[in-house]
């Protein structure tokens, strides 16, 4: 067997089942790769002991023929998911010492199905960011080589300010970087405004943001509860389908999780898309969009057409307002959710002369700049006198955004095709200027999906003229993830799977 880390999740699963490889070998191969990739900072905590014990248990089960759906598959877990007895920080200074006494529902489902935990993955602090640069552990670095930079040059830059290297996107930057660098076979991620799909697009990996309510949010550090949804990032569309089957399902501990049967998503891979109607929303052709993104989009539509789908132009007239409305709703909910970090019940405390002083010092010290900024804007838009002008208006606009999609689906459209991001990955430190809005514009194509609670899939579809990965996004009806997997597979097959980068960092 050659390098076990270059297998897809599906290939590894089949090889394990056929007893061609053992779970322990597979896990060790990934642990070794992680050891050599420390400078990428994709993982903020390695859990090798844990991993090897789980892999050994999987080998026993595989021997007995009692294998679960993910038996022996090594995964990375975003550090937003609470893992019992394993430090969980949300990549914030305020939680640096937090060791949960409980396991998130989604990770318990993954362990139930036999998956192996390799470690915890880097992300933007509290999932607030689009570049992974706001992490308290420092940025995770994209394994994708920047244009005109040789492997040796890149290696010299690594860890040396990382200047000139690329961001993996965010907030699930560690998840995407770890997949692209072959440091796990599947990764958990979360998506509030694009945090699964944008990093997937930046790294040539596949990211699935399920319908709001499809996966339980219990035990996942909350950012904006009405927008947050957890899902997988993996190497292929099939791999994300396999993972979602394990992650999805009703949870009595999350009242927003939906009680609905979980289909075998993998069965949707390879299904004919003949006769499906695919909407191309004209409002996504934004000013200043690069020629190559536009060309990629047309190519994606052409591939679907060749596979028998019908392409129709549609209108989603309120698209333009999704991002500003998001930057009211998300900070408002964040300011409320993050009120719990008070230095009293858990987390890092900074002493004060009285209780207010303790709160203020604890929070000023524990939260990074982006998190503080969002809490403050959220506090402002919820404060007396401004609530109606900002928050209620934004929630009304959210209704209009959702109605746009409903009208399109009512007219017979099965799914919507858009670019995943307005540009390929940018450099570390490039967008940390004075205007936060510049960074926010990254999510312009993904944020509508969260506002409307819909499922969205980011699939690699080509490269920019400089050779950087570019992705397309498929948006579906609520709970119609299966159609997205069928369509995504068509794009993946037509585009050819992106070649993952050689290990220049090792």
């Amino acid at each position, binding site marked *: 067997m050659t390098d076990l880390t270059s297998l897809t999740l599906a290939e590894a699963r089949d090889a394990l089942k056929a007893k061609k490889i053992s779970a322990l070998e597979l896990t060790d191969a990934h642990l070794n790769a992680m050891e050599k990739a420390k400078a990428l900072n994709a993982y903020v905590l390695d859990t090798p002991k844990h991993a090897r014990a789980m892999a050994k248990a999987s080998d026993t089960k595989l021997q007995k023929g009692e294998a679960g759906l993910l038996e022996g598959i090594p995964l990375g877990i975003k550090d937003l998911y609470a893992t019992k007895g394993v430090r969980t920080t949300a990549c914030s200074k305020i939680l640096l010492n*937090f*060791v949960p*006494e409980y396991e998130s529902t989604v990770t318990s489902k993954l362990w139930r199905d036999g998956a192996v935990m390799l470690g915890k993955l880097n992300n933007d602090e509290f999932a607030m960011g689009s570049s992974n640069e706001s992490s308290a552990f420092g940025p995770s670095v994209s394994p994708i080589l920047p244009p005109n930079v040789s492997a040796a040059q890149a290696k010299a830059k690594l860890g040396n300010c990382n200047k000139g290297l690329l961001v993996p996107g965010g907030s699930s930057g560690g998840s995407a970087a770890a997949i692209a660098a072959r440091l796990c076979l599947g990764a958990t991620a979360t998506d509030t405004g694009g945090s699964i799909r944008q990093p997937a697009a930046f790294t040539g990996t596949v990211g699935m943001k399920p319908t*709001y*309510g499809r996966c339980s949010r219990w035990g996942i550090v909350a950012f904006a509860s*009405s*927008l947050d949804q957890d899902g997988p990032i993996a190497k292929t569309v099939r791999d994300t389908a396999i993972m979602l089957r394990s992650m999805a399902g009703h949870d*009595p501990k999350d*009242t*927003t999780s*939906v009680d609905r049967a979980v289909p075998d998503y993998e069965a949707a891979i390879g299904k004919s898309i003949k006769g499906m109607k695919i909407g191309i929303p004209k409002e996504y052709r934004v000013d200043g969009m690069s020629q190559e993104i536009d060309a990629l989009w047309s190519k994606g539509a052409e591939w679907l057409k060749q596979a028998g789908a019908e392409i129709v132009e549609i209108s989603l007239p*309120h698209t*333009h*307002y999704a991002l*500003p*409305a998001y*930057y*009211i709703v998300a900070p408002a909910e964040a*300011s409320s959710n993050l009120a719990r970090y008070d*230095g*009293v*019940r*858990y*987390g*890092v*405390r900074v002493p*004060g002369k*009285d*209780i*207010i*002083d*303790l*709160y*203020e*010092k604890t*929070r*000023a010290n524990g939260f990074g700049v982006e998190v503080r*900024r969002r*809490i*403050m*804007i959220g*506090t*402002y838009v919820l*404060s007396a006198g401004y609530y109606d*002008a900002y928050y*209620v*208006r934004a*929630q*009304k*606009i*959210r*209704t*209009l955004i*959702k109605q746009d999609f409903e009208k399109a689906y009512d007219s017979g459209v099965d799914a919507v095709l858009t670019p995943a991001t307005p540009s390929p990955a940018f450099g570390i430190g490039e967008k940390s200027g*004075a*205007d*936060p*809005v510049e960074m926010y514009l990254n999510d312009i194509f993904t944020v509508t999906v969260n*506002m*409307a609670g819909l499922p969205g899939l980011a699939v690699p579809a080509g490269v920019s003229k400089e050779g950087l990965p570019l992705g397309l996004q498929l948006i579906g009806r609520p709970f119609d993830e299966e159609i997205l997997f069928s369509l995504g597979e068509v794009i993946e097959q037509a585009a050819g799977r992106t070649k993952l980068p050689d290990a220049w960092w090792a």
Partner: protein
Amino acid sequence: MSVDQATVQRIARLARIAVTDEEVPHLQGELNAMLSFVEQLNSVNVEGVEPMTSVTPMAMKKRVDEVTDGNIAEIVTGNAPQTEDHYFLVPKVIE
């Protein structure tokens, strides 16, 4: 709409985040950048539109109102910075 420096300090107080005088002008600039970005929402006609309260319309599942766990004070206080006999310790609140 834009915020002045006194408003920045008032928001910081409400958010329970200590802000030094030197940080205020910078924060003011950032908050105003965000507020001017969201200003465009004023041009949308929202008359008669219901504000969204639930993105996936569904009846919330309810369970019987009864105690389902307990006697885990050790676990509940396990991550607290300072505790005594299963109580969270804070500076004196009432004089």
